[in-house]
């Protein structure tokens, strides 16, 4: 298991939509426009009100989704089916328990708690989500691509993520749902709707410990192909031509002698 979580909550969506009240209002507007599907409402857990969305609901944040005929209906239908799966029932129970252990909202900690409590069900749920995403790609042309990466640093609310492919991605912190600590392994989730692409940084859903994770990411980076392909290096020469040339070529009268081509007889 080395992917982005197959679910996210209203808290992450609100963050992606501007955070605070603005984000909440935006989410409600998208719900009203049917761009976001109906979530699984878990209700209040401690002081957190939680609604669960499948990962592919991220497509609804790209407003162009409405331009694809039947897209909102299809999204609603596949979401309802996915949320009705047995795996999701177990996952949502684990989410509730995990959230109960939180003092402050942290998607990383929530996911970690779910992995601890329901790793098998989570894997099954991820497979459901991945299969729906493949179907959405086929039916609506929406693509979902996950890429492993490491947070390098955050400067001026821009998160620099070094990806396993060797590329570097700059993501505004408003689209980062993972802890922004330097060296944190994350997943960049790219959602493409009608050629408009949005990238969201999610925590990694994994059973590996920190060192194993770092090792896995390192190997992924080491074996990734060069994004630009290999370009032949320019030969550096220290040669400085004379500022003048011969006015006419000189031909040697004595030619045809060589010290490098004669092969002496065998001793």
């Amino acid at each position: 298991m080395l992917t982005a979580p197959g679910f996210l909550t209203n808290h992450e969506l609100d963050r992606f939509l501007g955070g605070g009240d603005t984000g909440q209002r935006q989410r409600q507007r998208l719900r009203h426009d049917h761009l976001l599907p109906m979530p699984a409402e878990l209700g209040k857990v401690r002081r957190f009100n939680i609604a669960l969305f499948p990962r592919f609901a991220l497509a609804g944040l790209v407003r162009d989704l409405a331009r694809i005929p039947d897209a909102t209906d299809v999204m609603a239908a596949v979401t309802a089916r996915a949320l009705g799966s047995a795996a999701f029932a177990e996952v949502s129970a684990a989410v509730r328990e995990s959230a109960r252990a939180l003092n402050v909202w942290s998607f990383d900690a929530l996911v970690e708690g779910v992995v601890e409590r329901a790793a098998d069900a989570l894997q099954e749920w991820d497979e459901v989500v991945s299969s729906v995403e493949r179907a959405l790609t086929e039916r609506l042309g929406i693509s979902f691509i996950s890429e492993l990466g490491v947070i390098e640093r955050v400067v001026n609310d821009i998160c620099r993520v070094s990806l396993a492919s060797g590329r570097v991605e700059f993501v505004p912190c408003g689209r980062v749902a993972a802890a922004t600590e330097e060296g944190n392994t994350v997943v960049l989730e790219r959602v493409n709707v009608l050629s408009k692409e949005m990238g969201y940084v999610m925590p990694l859903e994994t059973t590996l410990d920190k060192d194993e994770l770092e090792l896995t990411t390192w190997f992924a980076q080491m074996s990734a192909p060069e994004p630009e392909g290999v370009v032949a290096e320019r030969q550096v020469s220290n040669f400085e031509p004379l500022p003048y040339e011969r006015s006419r070529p000189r031909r040697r009268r004595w030619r045809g002698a060589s010290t490098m081509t004669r092969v002496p007889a065998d001793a």
Partner: protein
Amino acid sequence: MFEDLGEGPHYADPATDVVFGDIFEAPFLRDVYVRDSTALMGGGTLRANLALRLGKWMGEQLPEEDIGLYSPALTPKPGARFALAQATFLPADETPRAILISDSCLTATALVQGRTKRSVGGRLLFAPLSVVEPEQWDMLVRSEDFARFPLPVDERLPECSVAELGSCFMVDARDVKEHVHNRIVSLSAPLAEELEMHWSAYAARLGPRAYGRNTLKLASLLSGGGKPGDDEQDLADAVADVLDLARFIEAQDLEDVSAAEEDVRLSGGDAAQLTPPLVENIIEHLRELSDQAAAAADCLSARA
């Protein structure tokens, strides 16, 4: 710089024996060089079945084949001689090409060509080939950068190929012997001579290329600096002509002497019969050298 090269053909198909100037094409011909990060490495070949497992552990789909696994972190084994080094990267679809710079005599010995009671061994020197833009190739022909030898066009080579003498690397003779069939072309005698002159200039600042440039500098100085005048060029060329003949005596007459001596020592040749014409040649050329040198000295002296 190719005034003396003539019309060609400048290349030939490789002969049976490997000689100076043969051009090879093979994936392993990398211009390996060291930096201060270079370190000896341990490790070895990991069998295909284990490579698959390693790939799984790494989260990578490794091909099901034996792979080399080496690292400075593993204990280096003296017999293996693996070291971490640097090399120029080429585009993935380009196979490295390299030209043999070791002389034909050394090559014959290392590869046991026409030799007996020896075994293949030692290392041979190669210069990697690069491909440059046409303008740069023209510039190299005009300006004579000793570290870079532009190769005349041939259908068997990419256009605007350059032998990078400044990036030479050594290859184990055993592997050259194994890859004799990887030769794509040999140089004609005039082109091999051009390469030899270039190499001498690069490696030792000697020979026609080197003194050609230095006599041009002499002409410039005689002209008071800057672009040399025609008369000054004639004066400097007279010096270069003397050196041409001196080089001819060294590279032709004395090489002939060497061949005859080997004939006498190793093959029962008759010294009494072989020596007189050689000595005659040397005397004739020495006298001419003397005359030419005196004439050049007189001209220079008159000018001074």
